[in-house]
């Protein structure tokens, strides 16, 4: 009886089984809207503002484009391309390279901590926008940590939870309305900035607070900040891409959404910060457009944070269901969403200071995400040659070739540690201390490359001898298929 009541399409949409091409709801534009809605939020303006601290607008625009395109492409190749092809949940797919327990570990590191932090930061961004709005329309004195900011931040988290609890269809509707409006608003902001300052005048402006005398170091830090922004999508976009109709639809919208739309927002933030000397959009929006435009723009930007929160919360909950298997899979979707939102709401209420550490937090995430991207690319493109065996992926843990060593792949984890360590050696996000290598190739690129090379090399040397991972031999055309059935889930 109960078995007949199960909607397997809905289960797949909210769980870890592969979505069939006929079930996927997002075409090119829907995924573009989702991507844009994810990308455009206060964080885009703040990253642009942070770029203005290190370099002038001309170098800043170059750093935004270079950093974002490289970070976004490397993040999408390692996530959207495989998840878009097979419709698999991103962290289930990750079992093929990290093992089932290794995938859980990566989920905890890259999603649980980071998403809870991001939800709190975005909630506070929403709260500050509402506080700024209130200050514009009344005599209310704004306070970055005042009761209005905290109450509005908590409200944003509750609103996010309500939309996500209703599932991807409501997310699609929300994105389709908000994303185009945000692009128009950013275009108007750009127009207003350029109508008050000539392009040549803006391009000649200096950095707001360059930390080093060496122009090259400042430029590379600006590139690194933006590359960190590009890589920061790694934990989220795979699970959004699996909802798009095919692999091409899972890839190209990223170039429009999380690259172009994010870059546009960052350029607006950069120019506004350089021209007005303040990177906080709640301050410069009214300076640029006056009270009426400031109120409208701030209102939209406030809700832009909510669309970003919705998208990252949805992908995190889908991943969460593979973390503890049956127990979480049987738990109601709405309850899971509500429980996940408790910690971010507490952070908003009791540790609002997290907002001020936003920029350092972002760059630290790149030390992890760049290494994860390198391992993903080496594994999927070069070791598995873009062919996954879903039977292996969903086999019971004890029988799966992806069990590696007690569910962990020591090779991938070693590569992750080496990539992370290389990043911090080349560039310390906390102190900005850097090496000569950093001034030529940033820190994310060597971290990504080194993690990929270590994973590829050690897998070729060790994995086949140890019988790990069912990798095809170097000269074999296809993957080895173990005759496994899918009667069990590997996360049982």
């Amino acid at each position, binding site marked *: *009886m*109960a*078995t007949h009541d*199960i909607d*397997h399409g809905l*289960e*797949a949409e909210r769980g870890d*089984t*592969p979505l*069939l*091409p006929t079930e996927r709801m997002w075409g090119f534009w829907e995924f573009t809207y989702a991507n844009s809605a994810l990308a455009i939020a206060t964080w885009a303006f703040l990253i642009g503002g942070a770029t203005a601290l290190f370099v002038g607008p*001309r*170098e*800043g*625009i*170059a*750093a935004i*484009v*270079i950093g974002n*395109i*490289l970070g976004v*492409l490397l993040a999408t190749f390692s996530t959207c*391309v495989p998840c878009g*092809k*097979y*419709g698999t949940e991103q962290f289930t797919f990750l079992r093929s390279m990290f093992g089932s327990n290794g995938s859980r570990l990566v989920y905890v590191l890259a999603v649980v901590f980071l998403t809870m932090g991001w939800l709190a930061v975005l909630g506070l961004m929403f709260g500050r926008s509402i506080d700024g709005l209130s200050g514009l329309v009344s005599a209310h004195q704004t306070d970055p940590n005042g009761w209005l900011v905290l109450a509005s931040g908590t409200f944003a988290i509750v609103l996010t939870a309500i939309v996500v609890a209703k599932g991807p269809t409501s997310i699609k509707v929300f994105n389709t309305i908000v994303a185009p409006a945000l692009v128009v608003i950013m275009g108007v902001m750009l127009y207003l900035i350029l109508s008050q300052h000539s392009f040549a005048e803006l391009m000649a402006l200096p950095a707001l607070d360059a930390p080093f005398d060496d122009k090259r170091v400042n*430029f590379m830090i600006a590139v690194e900040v933006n590359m960190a922004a590009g890589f920061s999508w790694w934990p989220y976009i795979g699970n959004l891409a699996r909802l798009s*109709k*095919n*692999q*091409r*639809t899972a*890839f*190209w919208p990223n*170039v429009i959404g999380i690259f172009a739309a994010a870059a546009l927002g960052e350029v607006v933030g950069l120019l506004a910060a350089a021209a007005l000397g303040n990177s906080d959009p709640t301050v410069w929006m009214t300076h640029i457009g006056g009270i009426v435009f400031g109120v409208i723009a701030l209102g939209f930007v406030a809700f832009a944070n909510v669309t970003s929160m919705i998208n990252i919360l949805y992908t995190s909950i889908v991943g969460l269901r593979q973390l503890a298997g049956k127990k979480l899979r049987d738990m109601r979707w709405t309850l899971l969403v509500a429980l996940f939102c408790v910690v971010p709401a507490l952070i908003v209420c009791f540790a609002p200071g997290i907002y001020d550490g936003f920029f350092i937090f972002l760059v630290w995430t790149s030390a992890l995400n760049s290494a994860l991207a390198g391992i993903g690319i080496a594994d999927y493109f070069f070791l598995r040659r873009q*062919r996954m065996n*879903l*039977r292996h992926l*969903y086999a019971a843990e004890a029988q799966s070739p992806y069990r590696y060593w007690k569910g962990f792949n020591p090779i991938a984890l070693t590569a992750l540690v080496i990539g992370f360590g290389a990043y911090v050696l080349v560039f310390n996000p906390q102190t900005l201390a850097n090496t000569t290598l950093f001034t030529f190739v940033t820190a994310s690129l060597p971290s990504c490359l080194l993690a990929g090379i270590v994973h590829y090399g050690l897998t070729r040397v060790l994995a086949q001898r140890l019988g790990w991972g069912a990798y095809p031999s170097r000269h074999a055309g296809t993957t080895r298929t173990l005759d496994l*059935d*899918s*009667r*069990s*889930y590997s996360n049982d």
Partner: protein
Amino acid sequence: MNSQAEHARAQDLERRIRVYEEMEKGEQWPGALSAADYIAITLMTLVLVVGFYLWGY
């Protein structure tokens, strides 16, 4: 009831895996990124990185 639900899920998973195995047997994967896509991505990246580096720095 739980084991019934698990059995139904396993059957559904098997059906999904078979769909992809059938697609894997085909000559072409519908909607897959092609060589033209990869060339376009490479050229776009080179133009953006080199172009903006020369313009901005």
